[in-house]
């Protein structure tokens, strides 16, 4: 298996296990894995599943850091395991499911809470009137695109939720990725739904819960910089709130 090219190194993986049919609480299980020098954490997990313990459950897909499926806590830090090189770690590596999420089984977390927050920010173009096809395309300058492009790069890997201290303590908080996505649409020149989204941003999941720890941006594998988005969203939400006293809205 690991015999062609490169010296294999035996590493110990301490992996969180949880079987909802059998376990009351998660526990850990250790595996000894001969790791090739160029392996990522995901390679070791797949080796465990293929060769040692087929009952281990973990999510993965593209193995090239674009799908966002393989997020886990590696030595306490949220990482995409397909992108995390074992060469950066010691002889023992701890792998846990993403922090701050309910655990379905082993390294697989419950995503529905995230999907609800995601949908709550209305992540689609809201326009008073859809442009008819005969009228041509929507025009957007490079400068207009630059206002939000970075925030559109999110792959929904949820590492930011695993890193955020507020997510850990405030269940209602919309969270970095959802707010960044809502802000992406607010800053899109084709969109007219900013007041609707800003109302959500000032609701129970309020953007103002964010205390600018900046952890989300530290762990983001796609340089979305959600902390920037959330804190820009705060200013926009305040301006929207202030102008709502002056300008009557038709919608």
């Amino acid at each position, binding site marked *: 298996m690991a015999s062609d090219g490169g010296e294999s190194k035996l590493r110990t993986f301490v992996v969180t296990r949880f079987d909802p049919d059998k376990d009351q609480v*998660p526990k*850990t299980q250790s595996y000894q894995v001969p790791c090739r020098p160029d392996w990522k954490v995901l390679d070791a997990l797949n080796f465990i599943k293929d060769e040692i313990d087929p009952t281990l459950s973990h999510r993965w897909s593209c193995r090239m850091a674009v799908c966002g499926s393989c997020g886990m806590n590696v030595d306490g830090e949220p990482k995409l395991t397909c992108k995390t090189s074992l060469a950066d770690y010691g002889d023992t590596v701890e792998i846990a499911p993403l922090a*701050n999420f309910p655990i379905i089984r082993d390294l697989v977390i419950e995503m529905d809470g995230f999907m*609800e927050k995601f949908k709550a920010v209305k992540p689609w173009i809201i326009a008073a009137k859809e442009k008819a096809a005969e009228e041509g395309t929507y025009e957007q300058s490079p400068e207009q695109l630059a206002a939000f492009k970075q925030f559109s790069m999110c792959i929904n890997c949820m590492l930011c939720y695993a890193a955020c201290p507020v997510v850990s303590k405030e269940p209602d908080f919309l969270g970095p990725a959802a707010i960044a996505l809502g802000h992406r649409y607010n*800053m899109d020149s084709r969109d007219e739904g900013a007041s609707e989204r800003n109302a959500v941003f000032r609701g129970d999941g309020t953007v103002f819960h964010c205390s600018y720890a*900046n952890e989300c941006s530290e762990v983001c594998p796609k340089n979305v910089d959600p*902390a920037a988005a959330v804190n820009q969203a705060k*200013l926009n939400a305040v301006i929207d709130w202030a102008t709502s006293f002056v300008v009557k809205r038709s919608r």
Partner: protein
Amino acid sequence: MARPADPHAMQPSRPGRTRTAPPQVPDDFWTRPRMRTYLLFDATGIVYLLVGLVALRVAWALRDGKAAWDALLASFAHPAYLAFHGLALVCALFVGVRFFRLFPKAQPAHIGPAKPPPRPVLHAMLYAAWIGITLVLLAILGGVWPK
């Protein structure tokens, strides 16, 4: 290995089909270096609260007259006050450095037609303002001007 997060963290509004284990965080979630720095940053809030209340004392002493003012400055010479104000100075510098680093990226690309300066320029402007205002206050409160 792990400790609990809020039991309702990231919980969906309706329970799923399988029983889930409650959310957890790593044992060192709150003690890792970056998180420690962030918690210290929040903790400066306590110092700022006290600084504001002491500044209120300053204003009140000015209002009450010479005896009160002289007594106030004499009390500031107490080691406890000196230590507190020294700590406050360290906190203000720590807050300033961290906040000025994070402030530029918190400005939206535009608000209506208005655009912020490029981030490095804004960063430099904040430091220029900080140094400038400090020098002005040093000059005025330090007796340089007005005489």
